[in-house]
């Protein structure tokens, strides 16, 4: 067993990421079996030494060699990767089953089948290795084969293709014109005679007059335009009611829709007061 060197403790191929069956940090359990990639690899190497076709390999002999190998390895170093030990245990079992007559009960798997299945796995591994070798023998890019060193490249010129339908166009136009129409609507600014203005004017009027004066006449004296008359009348009327309430003026109307009369509040005559 020329390759039997199990003393170099460089880390096993499956170090690092593989934490499924070996706890990380358990470096002691990793053994470099001189580059063997696991028990199957080792088995294949041992099988190769039988120098027969894998389909006619003696699994029994193989199991024995493997167990010997593991034993030897353990003599040198006790720490063996779990994979190897699991395989050793399984092979020991297989060996015993192959040597012993088949048990009467058919519950346990047929050892011949188990052996055939192992041989099959070995053939499969050997075949994929051969395939990998064939693959790597092929001329490879940037090794034997080369692409064009300086390709110009194909340009794709972006030429946007605009899309719009007549309906889009017309509705855009209509929307725009309609918006314009609405935005151009102008309201006439209405002149409003405010209550404050009306009251101020009314106060000025009655300040001079102790006689009844017609409200409308009074409005006209302010030279209101017809457009202003309504707002002046409304505001003045409201203001006058307010001033009546405050006891500053008297207001009189002879009948419905007759002119309104206004004058400064008179001191009530004593006689009436006496009544």
């Amino acid at each position, binding site marked *: 067993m020329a390759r039997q060197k199990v003393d170099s403790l460089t880390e096993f191929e499956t170090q690092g990421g593989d934490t499924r069956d070996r706890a990380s940090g358990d470096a002691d359990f990793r053994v470099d079996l001189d580059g063997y990639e696991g028990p199957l690899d080792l088995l294949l190497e041992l099988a190769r030494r039988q120098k027969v076709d894998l389909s006619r390999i003696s699994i029994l002999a193989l199991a024995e060699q493997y167990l010997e190998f593991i034993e030897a390895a353990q003599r040198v170093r006790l720490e063996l990767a779990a994979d190897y030990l699991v395989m050793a245990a399984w092979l020991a079992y297989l060996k015993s089953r192959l040597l012993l007559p088949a048990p009467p009960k058919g519950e346990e798997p047929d050892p011949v089948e188990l052996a055939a299945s192992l041989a099959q796995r070995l053939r499969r591994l050997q075949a994929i290795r051969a395939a990998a070798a064939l693959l790597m023998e092929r001329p490879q890019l940037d090794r034997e084969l*080369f*692409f*064009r*060193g*300086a390709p*110009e490249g*194909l*340009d*794709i*010129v*972006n*030429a*946007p*293709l*605009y*899309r*719009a*339908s*007549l309906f*889009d*166009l*017309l*509705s*855009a*136009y*209509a*929307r*725009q*014109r*309609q*918006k*314009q*129409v*609405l*935005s151009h*609507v102008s309201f006439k600014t209405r002149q409003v005679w405010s209550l404050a203005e009306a009251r101020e004017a009314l106060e000025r009027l009655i300040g001079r007059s102790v006689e009844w004066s017609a409200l409308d006449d009074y409005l006209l004296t302010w030279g209101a335009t017809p457009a202003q008359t309504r707002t002046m009348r409304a505001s003045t009327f409201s203001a006058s009611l307010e001033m009546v309430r405050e006891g500053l003026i008297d207001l009189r109307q002879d009948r419905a829709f007759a002119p309104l009369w206004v004058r400064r509040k008179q001191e009530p005559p004593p006689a009436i007061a006496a009544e």
Partner: protein
Amino acid sequence: MAKKQQKALFDLAAQDAVDLLARARPDEAMRENMRICEALIFASTEPLSEEEMVKRLPDGADLSAALAYLKADYFTRGVHLVRVAKKWMFRTAPDLAWVLQREKKDAKKLSRAALETLAIVAYHQPATRAEIEDIRGVALSKGTMDVLLETGWVRLRGRRRAPGRPVTYGTTESFLAQFGLEQISDLPGLDELKGAGLFDGRLPKGFGVPQPRDDADLTEDEEPLGDQPLEQSFAADLPEETSEE
């Protein structure tokens, strides 16, 4: 004829080599040297010097002849072997430049601003920027008019005979084609637009939609674009094709 022009562009030696090739087939050794040069130049990331090739060829190989033959070989192909400053490289044939550039047509939707501007240009043409802005009520961005000119649906018509001589815009034939109109007067009028439900009833009296026209002839109040700088229009930054119109 185009072929002839191409040839003129090329080194005369190439034609000589074609003749040479016709007269005498290169022998096996020469063909192998040609293959080596071909592969070397092809794979090189930079134009390849003759010295470099000599190093890789069998001793005593006639590099010049091999390259001349090779160049002749490629002369009628889609790829040419060319020499630049004593270095050799492959280059796609100049007459095929158009093939290497493919236009990728990305369907794009016009922005709302562009669509509205286009519609105003269509109905109100010839329209100036100020007129468009007046109708839209917002300033017209340069980008919007650029896009419209890029579509090829809007063109510069002329200038308004007015202070500042503003550029007038109008639609093009491809505008008609795009929107399936035989002529610009086929654009629907107010009644049709109303009928299509595009206007609601609240239109003031006197509101109208102009009868559009896109005669190539300038209107009375237009004058030719002339060569006055277009700084008042958007044309200053236009792509060349468009401003040439």
